[in-house]
């Protein structure tokens, strides 16, 4: 199968590098710098999206939003006008499950199959082949692309029908953001009470409160060590989408809404390009403390 990859940002680029170990990959991005970088690593740059669509039986996308995916696929001049019937589209965007379902139906009418396959893990996990890939689609569809996806990482979870993987990615992101902010909240009160951060870390990370955020954050909080690679602007986009989808489905997203507000405050205070670890400062400012020295 001939693979085309559209969207060569932090995660898209990392995934393409992983694919290049076993496949020929045609790539496209509006940013020529990203294209040139991956061309230098063996990817085949496409001059236009239509060229890529004509050559490739599998089109993979990793774009900022589902609206971007729709624009690239289905707008006038979009990929569907050039791609051959029977092609597969794999959407690795952190997308809107409702939008994904609608696009899948529209693509199906053109005999094109859409599978949502967002990933869990960052660029370093991608480089090490340790991403978890969530898949949404029929059994036949997922089985068709399973070898391809497993060349990125062996950790594949077929979540259900199309859209289910995007839903699970949002659920995971929402819980993860809440875990992080809850960890800051508990550390802040403990610190104000006079408990050393290393004692809080030692007790919590052996107890009921332990979670991935507490395991990563608490041992490094006094040194403001980096625990993740995610900009606040993107973090807000993701939690915003989770809240919106919750509203669409009639689920009161109380915790996610609280998280959304705090992430937005962080973004306003520190900037959209600040790393998610900077959210510790939101709590520091509210409580009038500093956990350590920068």
């Amino acid at each position, binding site marked *: 199968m001939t693979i085309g990859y559209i969207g060569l940002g932090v995660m898209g680029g990392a995934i393409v590098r992983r694919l290049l170990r076993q496949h020929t990959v045609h790539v496209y991005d509006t940013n020529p710098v990203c294209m040139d970088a991956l061309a230098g690593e063996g990817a085949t740059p496409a001059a236009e999206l239509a060229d890529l669509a004509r050559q490739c039986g599998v089109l993979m996308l990793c774009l900022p939003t589902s609206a971007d995916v729709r624009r690239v696929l289905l707008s006038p001049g979009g990929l569907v006008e050039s791609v051959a019937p029977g092609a597969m589209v794999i959407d690795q965007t952190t997308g809107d499950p409702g939008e994904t379902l609608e696009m899948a139906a529209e693509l199906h009418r053109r005999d094109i199959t859409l599978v949502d396959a967002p990933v869990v893990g960052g660029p370093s996990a991608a480089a090490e082949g340790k991403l978890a890939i969530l898949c949404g689609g029929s059994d036949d569809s997922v089985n068709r692309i399973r070898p391809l996806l497993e060349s990125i990482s062996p950790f594949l*979870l077929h979540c259900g029908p199309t859209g289910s993987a995007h839903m699970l990615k949002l*659920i995971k992101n929402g819980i993860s953001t*809440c875990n992080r902010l809850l960890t800051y909240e508990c550390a802040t*009160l403990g610190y104000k009470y*006079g408990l050393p951060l290393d004692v809080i870390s030692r007790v919590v990370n052996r107890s009921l409160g332990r979670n991935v955020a507490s395991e990563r954050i608490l041992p490094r909080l006094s040194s403001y060590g980096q625990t993740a690679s995610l900009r606040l602007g993107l973090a807000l986009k993701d939690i915003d989408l989770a809240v919106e989808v919750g509203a669409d489905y009639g689920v009161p997203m109380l915790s996610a809404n*609280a998280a959304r507000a*705090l992430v937005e405050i962080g973004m306003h205070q520190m900037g959209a390009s600040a790393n998610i670890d900077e959210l510790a400062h939101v709590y520091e400012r509210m409580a009038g403390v500093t956990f350590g020295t920068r």
Partner: protein
Amino acid sequence: MSADASRRLVGFVGLGSISRAIVSRLLGKSIDCTCVADELASGNFHGSGATPAPSAAVVVRSADIVFLDISEAIRRGATLSGPGGLKEALSPGKVVVLLSEDGPEDVAAAGEELAVTGAIVLDAAHAGDAGALGTDAAPVLLSGPEAGCSIVSATLAAAGVSVDVCGNKVGAARMLNVLDTTLFAGCMMATFEGIALGRKMNLSLATMTEAINAGSGRNFTSSVILPAMIAGDSCEPAPVSGLLKCLRSFTSIGTVAGAPTIFASLTRSLVTNGVRRYGGSATIPHLLHLVESMADSGNDSPAGVIRAVKQ
């Protein structure tokens, strides 16, 4: 007090989860215990070697180290101060370990009141899976003056009970318990919220659990409680009533200390709602049902939640 840790008499007023775990270990190593508690006459400890005492004051007067459940003592008519109060029974050199589900500030205040007698006052708490209490995985947390912590640690070590000395301030152990429990409860309710959303798309609990645990969403609820639910097993690492006490402490201390309690307040409201709706014996599946009912995800009762989980 005997210099030999294994020859110290340990007394217990009340037999809550911490005390029960310690008494079992002490008796197993033939270390003398004297207890006053309703549980003593029940099947658990009757005839096991623990010496029954007629009153809290007798326990306090006779033991070298006293694990004192303040609420239990008061329930039995004891007072801290005044004629016949527990303070009268204390003397310099005794070690009192306060156990309480009250707030850390209340524990600290009780500690100050008792410390004027010259006794060494500590507090103890637990912040892990109650089933593993006293093991290296879930040690008893201890805080207070170093001399007292050393004495108690040595005695408990002789009985094979793991201890984590976490500070020299009375109330610190309870505070750590409050922090840990609040973090657990908050992550749990956020996880249940995600589960409710996934249910609306008919995602299975097994799939959701696996996806959450594959990445940064993993927490105690997703990695222990949900798999237990899927297997049809019970998993109640902490009573819901205990969660609520910790959440109330967190929010009240936060307000006084000037620390934000955004998630703690939200979680407290939800758990309070759960207790009001399902009663004082509400369980963790009840809280999942509460969240799902707010989303109208189709499960008509906590049992319905469990039935759906098994599908």
